[in-house]
């Protein structure tokens, strides 16, 4: 399913706002969205919420034969699934460019940086090693998938426990979780990626772009670092041209952000450990605050209203003066209306004309009807003169104009009723 294209006015609005250093959700240039890390019931299952972007990572392990070139190292396998659940733009099964890009970036960020001790995953050299598989599923796409995926993947790896293995001579026994406690993976460092988006050929820079900002950006720079200020991966994408100073500046910002995120990550892990120890409930269902699973909870965002009232007043003043009140419709005779001061309406104004009409329609009881009409008119005239807020418009030489009143319809109906009765 093709994604709806972004309209030009929306694009211009976003770019103009960015030029004025304003973002859609009121963040500053270097601010991240609200991040929430929760864990599932199993070890190795982690959910990350970055604003509205929601990502789930699951780690699993399996005993396999190692690669021939590396007989005493374990295998790490990463996979990011872009399912149509996350966004209508993603198609099921097709390996789109974005999917390849994200997968390769995650692989390079986590595998090439050697964040996990793969030699400790070896059970029998050359025969059996652990294969650790990290599956990241995108649940909701609201921009900055790479950061959310990297945080989810590394948190899940930290949270994961693999089964304990015992070796006696040639025999290898894999203990189930009930027999022996599973042991955590040995992780050297935690690489976390930070994304910078560039606008207007690199003039403006934003951290953690949301989906709308991603659509209007020129290019993206992804820097993965750990808290020891070691850069694990840099990747620039999109057709922008960077300068060396920009890259250096981004790396400095990234180091600050990464230390903050690592703290949050560690806190979440500690909290989860405590909760599990106390036997508290934990899991996906617990991470949703309300009973309704389909609820999308929105936090209140502050709106900048500083000069809103002045600008509103300006705009109102500059706008055209209020148009003249259109005169209410004028009704000479019940059932006939006239609006404005156009050509004088000669419909049914004359008594003679009235009589003629009636003569055409009904033969019997002409005079009676005539009398009825006259009586009606007189009554209306009396009413008209009685009303104070009536708009008298026409200066016709003919008889008085009858003004339409809300109560008119009843009288009109009554007249029609009488008329029809006379006819029959």
């Amino acid at each position, binding site marked *: 399913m093709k994604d709806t294209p972004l309209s030009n006015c929306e694009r211009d609005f976003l770019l103009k706002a960015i030029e004025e250093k304003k973002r859609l959700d009121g963040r500053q240039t270097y601010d991240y969205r609200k991040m929430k890390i929760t864990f599932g019931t199993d070890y190795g299952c982690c959910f990350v919420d970055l604003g509205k972007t929601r990502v789930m990572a699951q780690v699993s392990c399996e005993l396999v034969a190692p690669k021939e070139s590396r007989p005493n190292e374990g295998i790490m396998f990463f996979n990011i699934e872009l399912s149509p659940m996350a966004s209508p733009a993603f198609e099921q099964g097709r390996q789109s460019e974005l999917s390849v890009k994200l997968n390769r970036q995650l692989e390079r960020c986590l595998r090439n940086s050697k964040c996990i001790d793969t030699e400790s995953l070896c059970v029998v050299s050359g025969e059996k090693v652990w294969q650790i598989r990290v599956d990241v599923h995108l649940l909701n796409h609201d921009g900055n998938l790479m950061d959310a995926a990297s945080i989810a993947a590394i948190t899940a790896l930290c949270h994961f426990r693999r089964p304990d293995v015992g070796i006696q001579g040639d025999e290898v026994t894999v203990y189930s979780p009930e027999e022996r406690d599973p042991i955590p993976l040995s992780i050297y460092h935690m690489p976390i990626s930070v994304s910078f988006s560039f606008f207007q050929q690199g003039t403006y820079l934003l951290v953690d772009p949301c989906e709308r900002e991603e659509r209007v950006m020129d290019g993206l720079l992804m820097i993965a670092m750990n808290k020891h200020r070691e850069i694990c991966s*840099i990747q620039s994408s999109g*057709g922008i041209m960077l300068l060396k100073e920009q890259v250096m500046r981004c790396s400095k910002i990234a180091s600050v952000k990464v230390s903050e995120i690592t703290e949050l990550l560690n806190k979440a892990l500690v909290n989860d450990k405590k909760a599990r120890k106390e036997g508290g409930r934990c899991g996906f269902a617990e991470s949703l605050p309300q009973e309704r699973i389909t609820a999308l909870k929105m936090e209140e965002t502050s709106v900048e209203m500083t000069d809103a009232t002045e600008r509103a007043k300006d705009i109102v003043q500059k706008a055209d003066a209020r148009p003249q009140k259109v005169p209410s419709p004028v009704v000479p005779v019940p059932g006939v209306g006239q609006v404005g001061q156009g050509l004088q309406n000669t419909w049914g104004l004359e008594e003679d004309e009235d009589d003629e009409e009636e003569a055409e329609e009904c033969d019997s009881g002409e005079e009676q009807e005539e009398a009825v009409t006259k009586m009606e008119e007189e009554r209306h005239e009396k009413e008209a003169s009685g009303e104070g807020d009536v708009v008298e418009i026409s200066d016709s030489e003919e008889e008085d104009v009858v003004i339409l009143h809300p109560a008119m319809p009843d009288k009109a109906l009554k007249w029609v009723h009488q008329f029809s009765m006379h006819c029959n």
Partner: protein
Amino acid sequence: MAGLELLSDQGYRLDGRKATELRKVQARMGVFAQADGSAYLEQGNTKALAVVYGPHEVRGARSRSRHDRAMINCQYSMATFSTAERKRRPHGDRKSTEMSLHLKQTFEAAVMTQLYPRSQIDIFVKILQSDGGNYSVCVNAATLAMIDAGIPMRDYVCACTVGFVDETPLADLCYAEEGGGVSSLALALLPRGGQIALLQMDARLHQDHLEALMEAAMTACKGVSKVLDEVVRLHLQEVSVLSAE
């Protein structure tokens, strides 16, 4: 490979180069008659062939054509005999797709695509022998092919892979140096303005060393641009002599 000394005490590398020396570059332009532009480039032992078709009308999916600029389509593949062990999947695997995307991104920044709206430029690059620095050699070869095809570009696009060993940046890595867990940085540069078209780095590097590494990469790229410039001028001379006759 842990025992191999990538940088000796005297400052010599595995193949006898100094830290800032580039490998020998040999190039030919106008290799194929059929294509609009073609080039063959050797950088040390890495050999790449690049072919450019275009600008022509968008083939295939009409919806992909852009109304205000040309579309650049890249395909990167490695010959099955290019690596030490035979490659089972020359194209379609993730690494090749990623490389194609990077090449596309690099040239979208450099080529003046606004001059050819609603058209397509195809770049095909094939690695015949891989000895490190695949991406850089591809970019350099593709630049020559673009010039041969006569497609207007903002500047030469020169790329180089640099590594960081023992506090020293090494320019133009070969395969043995790349595989040794060395932090390698690949940079594609437009030399005159100093603008970076693509920046890619793997493996751990402390933030403080980043600036030095980037400086080394930019110097190396400027060196490559001089070599490419000479190649282009030589080729022009030959061609003009031939056509004059």
